[in-house]
């Protein structure tokens, strides 16, 4: 690494570049060294622009010992010369490693933390840990068969359709959810049905028709015509679910392998979203069907889970599904923020879960009375001084000193480890500061340059990211930061 360049070679290259004689360059360099020495003698420091700073440093008298004779000696006070390279030179020399950044040292326990979080997130359904998810499926099956049994007592002939009503009901719920949550749900639902094998989808379609016809009881002829085939299908469905249950068990056994963990997480997400949606929906409709719908929704969620876990090929779709679920969750939390605590619960859950995966870049928040950008930044980042970041992300905002309650703001989230900023976030913050700078500059406010100073703190090269005219005096002021 440390290849040597002789003084002669150095002089040669300088002489070549400056079109001067070697002799002159040699003498000039010697004189340069002399002048530097003189400067050090004179006032203790010499700064050379673009290179570095030579400085005399006082070292106090201290005790030492001669390692050869092991005699104690006193080292007298003296000066030592230190050279501190300027940033330009430091960066130039460090260029081969410039792309590396310090990173957190991960602890070994991290992987184990993930499942426990999930467990706590959905105690209702998996009380004691991963193996029980299989049990819960069995529970659902039992529950549905119990339902069937009950209905059999009530309605007699219609029994066969009970199991089959589930998809129809599920559609109904999902439709209503869709109406409530907006259209985001639709593609997800489609995908969910696509995920299931063709056999089932066909079944669902026929069943959906059937259940519609069946809801207004008609001639028994038709019923009897459908009944046997439906029964067969019920058994195939049940059989299928049973065959899927062991599959889940086996993946559980493999669960320690990192490979199946994402699938499990995806499945849990789907479960959470569907159950959360059903619960939320149940608060608004007090109809007698609610509990049944809940159960139905659970079974559908479980069968979805089974599909997702059983079929490894569908991993990718499961993942994309998860993304959509996240979107959906965001939308959900946004809509319900004003009234419902539970929305914040799901939001927290999604935040907790997604911190292990990928985080959303930003969340939408509705401004409440008394809130300021300052307080929003403090709540979200723990550092109120980051408020220009929010301002920078919301182009609709004009005056950073004035936000209106009831309006919605997109609040960017830090994506570095431990809720810290990563490089991209820092650029975002710097851009936010430049946006506030621009506004205050437009108002001829003396605050403006302070915001440019802030931008400089978060990004070194302001001019490269700013698309606005920057006052030279302000830039000079800002460049003093860092």
């Amino acid at each position, binding site marked *: 690494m440390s290849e040597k360049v002789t003084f002669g070679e150095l002089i040669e290259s300088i002489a070549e570049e400056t079109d001067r004689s070697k002799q002159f360059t040699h003498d000039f360099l010697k004189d*340069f060294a002399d002048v530097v020495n003189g400067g050090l003698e004179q006032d203790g420091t010499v700064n050379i622009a673009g290179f570095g700073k030579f400085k005399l440093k006082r070292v106090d008298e201290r005790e030492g010992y001669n390692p050869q004779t092991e005699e104690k000696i006193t080292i007298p006070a003296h000066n030592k010369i230190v050279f501190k390279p300027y940033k330009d030179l430091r960066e130039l020399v460090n260029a081969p490693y410039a792309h590396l950044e*310090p990173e957190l040292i991960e602890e070994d326990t991290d992987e184990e933390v993930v499942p426990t979080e999930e467990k706590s997130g959905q105690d209702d359904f998996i009380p004691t840990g991963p193996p029980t998810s299989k049990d819960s499926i069995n529970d659902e099956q039992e529950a549905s068969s119990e339902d069937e049994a009950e209905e059999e007592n009530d309605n007699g002939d219609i029994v066969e359709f009970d199991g089959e009503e589930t998809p129809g009901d599920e559609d109904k719920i999902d439709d209503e959810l869709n109406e409530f949550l907006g259209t985001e749900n639709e593609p997800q639902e489609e995908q969910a049905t696509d995920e299931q094998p063709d056999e089932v989808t066909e079944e669902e379609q026929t069943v959906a028709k059937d259940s519609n016809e069946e809801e207004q009881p008609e001639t028994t002829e038709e019923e009897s015509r459908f009944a046997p085939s439906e029964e067969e299908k019920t058994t195939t469905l049940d059989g299928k679910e049973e065959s899927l249950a062991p599959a889940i068990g086996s993946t559980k056994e493999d669960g320690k392998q990192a490979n199946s963990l994402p699938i499990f997480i995806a499945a849990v997400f789907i479960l959470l979203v569907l159950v959360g949606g059903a619960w939320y929906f149940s608060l608004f409709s007090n109809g007698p069907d609610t509990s049944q719908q809940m159960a139905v929704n659970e079974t559908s969620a479980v069968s979805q889970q089974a599909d997702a876990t059983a079929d490894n090929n569908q991993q990718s779709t499961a993942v994309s599904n998860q993304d959509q679920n996240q979107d959906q969750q965001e939308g959900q939390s946004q809509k319900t923020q004003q009234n419902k605590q539970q929305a914040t619960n799901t939001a927290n859950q999604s935040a907790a879960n997604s911190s292990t995966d990928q985080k959303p870049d930003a969340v939408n928040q509705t401004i409440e009375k008394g809130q300021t950008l300052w307080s929003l930044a403090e709540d979200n980042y723990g550092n109120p001084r980051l408020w220009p970041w929010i301002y920078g992300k919301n182009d609709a905002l004009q005056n950073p000193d004035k936000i209106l309650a009831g309006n919605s703001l997109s609040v960017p989230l830090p994506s570095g480890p431990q809720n810290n900023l990563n490089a991209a976030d820092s650029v975002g913050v710097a851009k936010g500061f430049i946006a506030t700078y621009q506004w205050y500059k437009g108002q001829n406010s003396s605050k403006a340059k302070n915001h440019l100073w802030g931008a400089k703190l978060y990004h070194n090269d302001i001019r490269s990211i700013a698309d606005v005219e920057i006052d030279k005096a302000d830039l000079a002021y800002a460049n003093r930061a860092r």
Partner: protein
Amino acid sequence: MNTSDLVAKLADNWDMSKAETRRLLDTIVETFSDSLANGKTFTIPELGTFGSSTRDERESYNPHYEQYMKLPPKRTVDYSPSKSLKEDLKQLGANDE
């Protein structure tokens, strides 16, 4: 002493304009920097030896994040003053006391 003082003095010594001297000095500094960036070591008589060395990757506690961080390797500039300069300035310190 800052760069303009240095330039003024050199210009005076060599009977050149300050602008010319500044250009010359910039070229010299640039050559130094380039050599260092390419991992070269060089010695200026009466001044000292410049070189670069690599600091290994290490773990360190970051008090702000309250967590241990892995710091990447980096290359830094080394400087060791020439013996004559060292002796000269050592004396200077002793005289001041």
